[in-house]
């Protein structure tokens, strides 16, 4: 079985009396250690797709399997535990905790979710910060970092728990072109180093080129796979 299996999934949002079909009868699978992107115009369903795979939301119809688990059947607590152990997240606006330093931001999941010992945490955080080239910035707070640096820290935070799958919703949208490509290449090199599957969304053609598999969504339907 693939790492991610989406079976005939639909997601409909009810806003007042109006129904918005964010995803319609989508079926796809994503293999382990792949580097996949969802592309498409705004409102095509990219974020909804990532939310469903990331156990942040539940489908209206269909089944979502991640790491052989049917995650749409999970309750609130199970979803939180699953996200903490199997998934990593990278956000468009970086979403680093402003009161924590670079080191502490990366350490956060190990303290709050994994309960690792101090020595193990130190080893894991230092290793991943070294990999993203941010070890020399470890004592800086997020407001002392550039956009590209913040996203590198976010990548490190997503990877520190050694997740099987990292989801990134428009990770380069707030970055300049050069930083954007650098971050995507960093993610790709992390995939190579840690054998982690990366799924991200973008509508930046320059970033799309870096992906190995490109799924195109339009009006909630999967129209193309490249």
């Amino acid at each position: 079985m693939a790492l991610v299996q989406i079976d005939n999934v639909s997601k409909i949002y009810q806003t007042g009396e109006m129904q918005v079909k964010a995803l319609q009868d989508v079926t796809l699978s994503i293999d382990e250690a792949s580097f996949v992107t969802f592309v498409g115009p705004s409102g095509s369903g990219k974020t909804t797709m990532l939310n469903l795979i990331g156990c942040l939301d539940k489908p209206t119809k269909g089944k979502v399997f991640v790491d052989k688990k049917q995650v749409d059947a999970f309750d609130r607590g199970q979803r939180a535990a699953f996200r903490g152990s199997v998934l990593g997240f990278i956000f468009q606006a970086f979403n680093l905790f402003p009161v924590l330093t670079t080191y502490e931001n990366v350490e956060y999941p190990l303290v709050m979710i994994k309960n690792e010992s101090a020595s193990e945490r130190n080893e894991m955080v230092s290793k991943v910060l070294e990999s993203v080239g941010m070890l020399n910035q470890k004592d800086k707070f997020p407001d002392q970092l550039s956009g590209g640096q913040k996203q590198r820290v976010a990548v490190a935070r997503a990877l520190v728990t050694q997740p099987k799958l990292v989801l990134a919703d428009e990770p380069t949208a707030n970055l300049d072109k050069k930083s954007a490509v650098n971050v995507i290449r960093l993610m790709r090199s992390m995939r190579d180093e840690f054998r982690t599957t990366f799924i991200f969304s973008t509508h930046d053609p320059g970033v799309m080129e870096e992906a190995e598999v490109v799924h195109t969504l339009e009006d909630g339907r999967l129209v193309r796979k490249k």
Partner: protein
Amino acid sequence: MIRIFKIALRNLMRYKRRTLLTSLLITLGLLMVILFSGLAGSFKEMMIGQITDSNLAHMQIHKKGYVSSMDTSPLNLTINQKGCKTLEKMLTENPDVEAYAPRIKLSAMLSNFTETTNVRLNAIDPDKEIKVCPDVSERMKFSGSEVPDILLRPGEIIIPEKLAAGLKIKIGGSVVLVANNKDGSVNGLNFTVAGIIESILGPQGKEGYMHIKDAQSLLRMEKPEVIEIALRIKKFDKLGDVYTDLVSALAEFKNKKGKPAFEIHTWEKLSPFSNIAKMIDIMTVSMKIIMIAIVLISILNVMMMSVYERVREIGTMSAIGTAPGRIMGLFLAEGLSLGLISTLAGNIIGILGIYILNIYKIRYSFGRMDNLLLSPTISFSELVWVSATVLLVSIFATLQPAYKASRMEPVDALGHV
């Protein structure tokens, strides 16, 4: 746990002004309570001490029905010799009773040979009285500057200062006391004025003193009788318990009609100051309620704002797998830290305030008592109680915002603008 509090403190410091203002408000509330408790509590304790140690004693035993008619100083409600011995035996056997003293209360006519006036007198056994009311002599003036070895000898009288001033009676002077006994016959005796006593608050605060043997002679008692037995207990804070014990012990003594022979009252039932003491207690509780309201509203407000301002951050925490309980714990730690910082500051400033009040001594008058010195103190247990209340209220005030944060759906929180 340390990490959670570290994060909580940093989050509090994100909004320095808001945290400072809230903390200041709680600190002031706590300071207010500490100073008020210190001042009012000390005033109450001092007044109770004055009243009980100077003339009222901790408790008094009378023949049944005496207290309800005490304004007329009835002489027919006396405790006879046998009754006295029974009561003395009961009191001696009670381990909580430190001392007891017999008294006769009487009204008499006092004359300086030119003018006559009414006087209420407290006839005492000086040796026993000083054990029950150790400060009895503090309000008395004698011919020398020091209190005589024997407070009062037979043939001597100590008269209230207002009366002495009115009749122009001086220490060492002679007066005549004329009194009716319980049969209505009149008797008179000469006395030497041994001292003058200042007035004190309460029904027995304006009484003169004479020797109990003189009172028995004046009232022509064939056998020694007493009106009341005043008693002092070893631990004042056990007053209620000892009173209950003595009430049940006294219930065994019946009169010829099979009804209770004696009654016992604590100082609270005998002095109007007990109502003032209750008012002080009510005011102290009111101050504490105000403080609780300040803490509750200010922390609730701060924490609600904190949650609303950090919705995306909460969404991030939740998205990366932080358990709802941990998110709740983070916010609870924040509220508790705010309460803890304010409590520490309030305690330090409060204790400093009490210390300063003790340096600049507060003197005041109360009723006819002048130049009373107030020494504010606050007990450690009171500080612990007030601090624990603030901390508990801090947690309680944070519960709702923290619960709200923990229940946020990450997908909604992350999309919050």
